């Protein structure tokens, strides 16, 4: 199919036309090819790339499937997502990652990159067959025990070393297990009042510090998942200054929500790692703006209603993210003038694609680049309605929030998977 996004603004602010033919950008400029889609007032960015998504398939298909997660991704402007390994069975073999990869292809709404487990069964004891997963059809490059920390320093060291052979990266969920036994929320003034077991910042920072030093020692690549603390930002800043090969992510919710929301005891705010203080939020924003933090990743974690409709300590950890991520980042970073649209494209598309080694993703829009594009309306606000989300689950902490910026079109490999804010039913085969 050939069409032209006419009168569209690039991240740089330049207003132009983007012509697409097949799966490629044909031209950017005055040329018009094929059908014309008027995009006056809209902005085109390279399709968003999520490096941290929980899809729940196989195992908990009542919460989310690869297909429903892909729909949510497309609605959120994503053309790629990365399926975390903590499914049931765990994605710790070539068989499981290939199954997820195939389901992603079948869904055809965005590119689905399986993440492989670092250790067998996420148990933290024996390395999973990282090489087999790397060589499988899914070509896994990112490995993570997310949900659990690779806490044994020797196992972490070996994993960092091992993935060097195929250019892989270990994405660490930094959480010292002993320091967070039974932990329910950020440890501080609020937890002291609420009588909820505290989750100290140091439990996150101690692992980050250790892993930075390990990555330096074995000269491998380390990615820190969902950074949440001011101290963590400082550690990553220091590591980068030393030239250590470390990247870091932050979630949208940690850029905006704080631990005082837990005072409601509403488990919709229960998440791992926990919501921190306003001081941490400001440090995360500053770190994202100055490049210390490389990317925004959703940590989209769907849970069925009954896992949140209960008392706090019995509830599951996690929040939805795919369909609200861009708007939250716009609200916290762009509207506050902390970042430009180009920087936003970097942290939500270009950088995550680089970390994951996703060749057809996160490519700045130019003639010949892959036609993975999100078109947004920066002038339109919308009210989040958990019932209207495409995810199978409803556990968004933003229900009722009025957020800026609407996703208008999502073009995946030249196909309008979302057009005029609606899923079209089309897919890329």
């Amino acid at each position, binding site marked *: 199919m050939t069409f032209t996004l006419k009168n569209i603004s690039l991240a740089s602010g330049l207003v132009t036309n983007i012509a697409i033919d097949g799966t490629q950008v044909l031209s950017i400029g005055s040329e018009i090819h094929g059908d014309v889609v008027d995009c006056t007032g809209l902005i085109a960015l390279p399709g968003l790339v999520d490096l941290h998504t929980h899809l729940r398939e196989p195992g908990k298909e009542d919460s989310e499937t690869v297909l429903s997660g892909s729909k949510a991704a497309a609605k959120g402007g994503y053309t790629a997502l990365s399926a975390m390994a903590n499914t049931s069975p765990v994605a710790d073999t070539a068989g499981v990652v290939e199954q997820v990869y195939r389901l992603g292809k079948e869904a055809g709404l965005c590119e689905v990159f399986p993440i492989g487990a670092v250790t067998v069964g996420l148990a933290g004891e024996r390395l999973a067959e990282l090489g087999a997963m790397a060589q499988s059809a899914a070509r896994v490059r990112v490995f993570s025990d997310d949900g659990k920390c690779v806490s044994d320093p020797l196992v972490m060291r070996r994993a960092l070393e091992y993935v060097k052979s195929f250019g892989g990266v270990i994405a660490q969920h930094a959480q010292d297990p002993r320091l967070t036994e039974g932990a329910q929320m950020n440890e501080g003034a*609020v937890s002291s009042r609420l009588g*909820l*077991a505290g989750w100290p910042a140091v439990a996150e920072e101690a692992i980050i510090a250790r892993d930075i030093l390990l990555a330096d020692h074995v000269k491998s690549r380390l990615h820190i998942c969902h950074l949440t603390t001011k101290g963590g930002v400082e550690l990553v800043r220091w590591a980068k200054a030393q030239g250590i090969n470390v990247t870091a992510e932050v979630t949208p919710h940690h850029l905006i929500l704080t631990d005082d929301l837990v005072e409601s005891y509403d488990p919709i705010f229960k998440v791992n790692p926990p919501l921190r203080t306003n001081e941490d939020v400001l440090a995360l924003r500053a770190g994202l703006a100055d490049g210390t933090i490389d990317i925004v990743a959703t940590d989209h974690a769907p849970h069925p209603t009954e896992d949140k*409709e*209960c*008392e706090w300590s019995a509830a599951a950890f996690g929040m939805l993210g795919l369909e609200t991520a861009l708007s939250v980042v716009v609200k916290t970073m762009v509207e506050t003038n902390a970042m430009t649209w180009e920087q936003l494209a970097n942290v939500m598309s270009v950088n995550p694609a680089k970390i994951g080694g996703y060749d057809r993703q996160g490519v700045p829009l130019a003639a010949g680049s892959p036609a993975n594009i999100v078109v947004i309306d920066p002038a339109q606000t919308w009210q989040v309605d958990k019932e209207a989300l495409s995810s199978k689950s409803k556990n968004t902490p933003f229900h009722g929030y009025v957020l800026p910026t609407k996703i208008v079109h999502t073009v995946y490999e030249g196909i309008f998977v979302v057009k005029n804010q609606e899923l079209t039913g089309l897919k890329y085969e």
Partner: protein
Amino acid sequence: MKSQLLSINDLSTADIHSILSTAAELERITDGPTKKLPTLRGRTVVNLFFEDSTRTRISFETAAKRLSADVINFSAKGSSVSKGESLKDTAQTLQAMGADAVVIRHGSSGAAQRLADSGWISATVINAGDGTHEHPTQALLDAFTISKSFPDRKSDFSGLRVAIVGDILHSRVARSNVLLLSKLGASVTLIAPPTLLPVGVETWPVKISYNMDEQLEEFDVVMMLRIQIERMSNFFFPSEREYSRQYGLNEERLLRMKKSAIVMHPGPMNRGLEISASSADSSRSVIVDQVGNGVLTRMAVLYLLLGGAALTEVGQ
């Protein structure tokens, strides 16, 4: 007064005075041969206990029965409550049974608030202890006990010096008492090893001490908290003997206290660990009074929450 009692924060100082003076009046009224009042006839109070606590349940049950309410004891312990739906399901069952008040004891902090805010139930929710969060009626009965021990003060505790000693970190009694006693003007000092004080305690309206012997002579009230022996396994303190030596109320310490000072304990006590038998049984001890005052205070709370029309019924 709000229509729920989930936290001491739900109460204004005027509410607290009203509860304490009501308890005092109830004591006078029920001093005679008949202890039962007809006030809550036809109202149903459910004791919903997800955790064993015979003394708190009996106290609420006695209070409700003395006001002629119908009492249903619903012990949810042992049933499969780990998933939490059962809190919702149980709530809806109680709703269908026409409960006017639910007195809830739960091991999870915030469970009472969850029950009250969820929309699962329209009954008045009274927190009888939620996890390590709060136990508001215990604090109220403690304040009532203090006010009786210092009759000149009525319920103005300004300048009164109260020490709360022991496992503050895991104590709902301490949290409620800190809020309540400081609202009434008392100066509260928490005495504990640093391991048993929560991170963030510096934001509380209290003084902190790690040393029980430092100012013992200055306190008007010494409230000892129960220490759970299983805490030792998490390195909160090295041994029972060391804890007892550092933070136990023994005879020698008892003798150093002010003449007018009183000793309190929410029970159940570990005699010989946080409190010696001689301290628990001494003339300064008001521990037994606390039990009787518990019934009166809970009667006052039940009366003030259930005795009148619901606020919506009178259009306020």
